[in-house]
């Protein structure tokens, strides 16, 4: 259940950036090959945000599909697991996308204007 620790990290990072301002919305990118379950992060989010400036905020998770490039023939292959076999028979694949784990943006209530 590493998602609990991951969610605590998300809350800590956003908390740091918000500097006391109320946070309304957080957009997180999670790659589909990253071994992080978006549902588990959602589940942990409400608990982890209690008593913080993130309490009540919406968590949006963008799932980034897996894409790899074959080292042998250069073909690009969609992946739903972090390994695979290219049509040319090679298993030497470089992952291009799908391993993301990022806070994309946050929306805060208090602004300058």
């Amino acid at each position: 259940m590493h998602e609990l620790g991951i969610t605590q990290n998300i809350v800590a990072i956003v908390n740091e950036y918000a500097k006391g301002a109320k946070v309304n919305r957080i957009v997180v990118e999670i790659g589909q090959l990253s071994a992080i379950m978006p549902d588990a992060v959602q589940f942990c989010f409400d608990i982890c945000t209690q008593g913080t400036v993130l309490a009540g905020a919406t968590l949006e998770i963008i799932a980034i599909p897996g894409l790899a490039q074959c080292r042998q023939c250069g073909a690009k292959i969609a992946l739903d697991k972090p390994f695979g076999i290219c049509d040319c028979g090679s298993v030497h694949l470089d992952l291009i996308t799908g391993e993301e784990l990022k806070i994309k943006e946050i929306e805060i209530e208090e602004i300058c204007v």
Partner: protein
Amino acid sequence: MCVTCGCSDDAQTIITNLETGDMAQNHNHHTHTLPDGTVITHAHGHAHHQDVSQIHAKIHNTTISLEQDILAKNNLLAAQNRGWFKGRNILAVNLMSSPGAGKTTLLTRTINDLKQQLSISVIEGDQETMNDAQKIRETGCAVVQINTGTGCHLDASMIEKGLQQLNPPLNSVVMIENVGNLVCPALFDLGEQAKVVILSVTEGEDKPIKYPHMFRNTEIMILTKIDLLPYLQFDVDRCIAYAQQVNPHIQIFQVSATTGTGLDNWYKWLTEKNNL
């Protein structure tokens, strides 16, 4: 609070663009006009107000673009650990497996067999108990136990603290025995030079494709308890093919820590790696 724009300058928000390394925190007021004619006077340079940037536009919609890596803090600490090891010429090896695969047995045997050649100390990770640390201690080697409580893996910060306690000698080997778990430990860089996954033949040959993250990023797979093969239906060739499918560069050693079979290859790798 800033009297012109009302933003809280005492909060000292600093936003760093991780792509360019640019940081902003100055508080110089300026005025500009939005496309709809709205004139805004505000403090410039509270990080989120960067000239000619997407962040600048977005802040007016109250959105801050972060692009912050959620594991960045762990990765930074891991890099520090790696530097710490390198500066002391210490080889750190992260041993991972499911519970009961035989990490501790392999480790105690390794320590006993290599005592004369290598100086080995151990960071032992478990959710609870000191059992494994005590077994390691019986070999005479220095050991620090990290109990993670509910935590399912070790992270770089735990290793940093563990190292302060362990204080391993220069030119030595630190074995990090991770929490028994084939999922979570794969995600956390500890600053080790090599990851080793241990798979026992009692677990089923399809573990590499069932837990690909674990097997994908490891340099070595030790297939252990091979003395039990006569009593099991475990297809070694298939297991190796699965592991190589997930990780074409993986090196595989077949060993029995009980009988000693195959341990020479593992010891040779460890000794050579230590001399690099």
